[in-house]
């Protein structure tokens, strides 16, 4: 005779899996370094990187803030620009037909090629880095936002029209809420790529920031510092990602 027992509630420990995966890779890394007798300036062991982070904590912090500023400013500017352009595109289809192909074309230019041009125009300061970070964010958000603003159903639009809703009302009460899931999937992409944009900008011409630290560490064969800088940039991208996920959870409860 079988008894129907309520299923035990599964505890939400899914985050343990990627943690276990990460630990196993760290172990693999350590094994290769130790067993292969890899010299530290070629590739350091994990504990060397950890020690390096601690030793250079002041230097790393000094270079962390400029990159954070550039990445966040680029993220905000790039996404605001993309959202505004998408709003114009969906309301004026002629404008979209004229300029969307150009945006697509522009997107094929590698950022790395654009960086020197922007530095020639704006000089070695924070502006070209913010612009590069913005440009990296712009295109994914533009494309997603256009799709999102058109993602209403035909009966939803008919409902708005039977109620004699104005364009602004349709935008605020239908198109914008409908676009939010699309916007957030774009923000998940751009919050990590804006960090890459800022770092690429710093490579080309800068004395500050994680990007310039990476260049300096590479040329001076300081592989421990190089890895430490890479860890910083990942940490920065991850914290931006966490913020985006948190706000998505807050705004997209339906």
């Amino acid at each position: 005779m079988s008894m129907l027992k309520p299923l035990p509630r599964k505890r939400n420990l899914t985050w343990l899996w990627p943690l276990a995966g990460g630990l196993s890779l760290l172990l693999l890394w350590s094994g290769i370094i130790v067993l292969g007798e890899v010299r530290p300036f070629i590739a350091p062991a994990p504990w060397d990187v950890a020690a390096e982070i601690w030793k250079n904590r002041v230097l790393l912090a000094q270079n962390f803030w400029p990159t954070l500023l550039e990445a966040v400013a680029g993220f905000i500017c790039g996404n605001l620009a993309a959202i505004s352009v998408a709003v114009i595109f969906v309301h004026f289809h002629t404008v979209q037909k004229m300029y969307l192909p150009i945006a697509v074309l522009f997107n094929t230019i590698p950022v790395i090629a654009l960086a020197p041009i922007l530095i020639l125009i704006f000089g070695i300061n924070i502006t070209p880095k913010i612009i590069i970070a913005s440009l990296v964010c712009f295109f994914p958000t533009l494309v997603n936002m256009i799709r999102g603003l058109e993602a209403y159903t035909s009966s939803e639009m008919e409902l708005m029209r039977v109620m004699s809703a104005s364009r602004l009302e349709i935008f605020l009460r239908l198109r914008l809420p409908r676009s939010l899931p699309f916007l957030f999937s774009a923000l998940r992409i751009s919050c990590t790529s804006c960090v890459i944009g800022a770092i690429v900008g710093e490579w080309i011409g800068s004395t500050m920031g994680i990007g310039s630290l990476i260049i300096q560490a590479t040329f001076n064969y300081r592989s421990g510092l190089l890895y430490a800088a890479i860890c910083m940039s990942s940490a920065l991208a991850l914290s931006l990602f966490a913020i985006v996920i948190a706000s998505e959870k807050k705004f997209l409860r339906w």
Partner: protein
Amino acid sequence: MPARSSRPPNAIALRDAAVTFATDAGLFTACQNINLDIETGSFVVLIGPSGCGKSTLLRLVADLLPCAAGTAEVNGAPPEAARKARAVSFVFQDSTLLPWRSVMDNISLPLQVGRWAALGRGHRPVKELLELVRMSGREAAMPHELSGGMRQRVAIARALVTQPDILLMDEPFAALDEITRESLNEEVLRIWRETGTTVVFVTHSLEEAAYLGQRVVVMAANPGRIADIIDLRQAKPDNRIDRSSQAFFEITTGLRRVLEKAYRGEIAA
């Protein structure tokens, strides 16, 4: 709601009306030669094979589609005027509740758009509407938490919040199971009696048409047109009938015969 004194005798008047669509293959006539008067406060059902232009006709009345020929009058004026005066409400087959809004916020949506405040007309309190559609206590629920039948109840409440003169319903219960549909049919009649609203109800269910309509407009396809109009007011005094009665069986049988002819296209255009 007492009948408004200013209401014209015919809520809807269509004269030789036609609706066309511009398609790649040229102009397509979705319906033509439509002559139909719908008395204010009456309950009219449209039935016919799919593609015969039932939804098109409702959209013409709602000013979602223009009249290509003939004339259409809603409340004695062009459909556009009726729409702007917020005299018409629409209930869709999919409830079309906005998923990010609670039941309460969905029902009050019509009051937040379309210059409602400027019209200076009274609306029905949301609490009262929830009672009317028997959804009291669920005002905070989100649409995804509701069953299909409950979502349609909320959609009906939303349509009634502006106290419209005309309620257009396009196969509102087609996606629901039979038992739910039958109970919602009763609710719709109760709401119709209570509000005095003119109702135009599209269905492809014979039983639903027979149960609800004071008059049933049978349409035929290719081109979309009115095949016959069946008056059930004599057969259903007070528009009430028992579904299990002999009288109801006779009504559905008669309706079935007309409908079968319309399906076969035996009724000349």
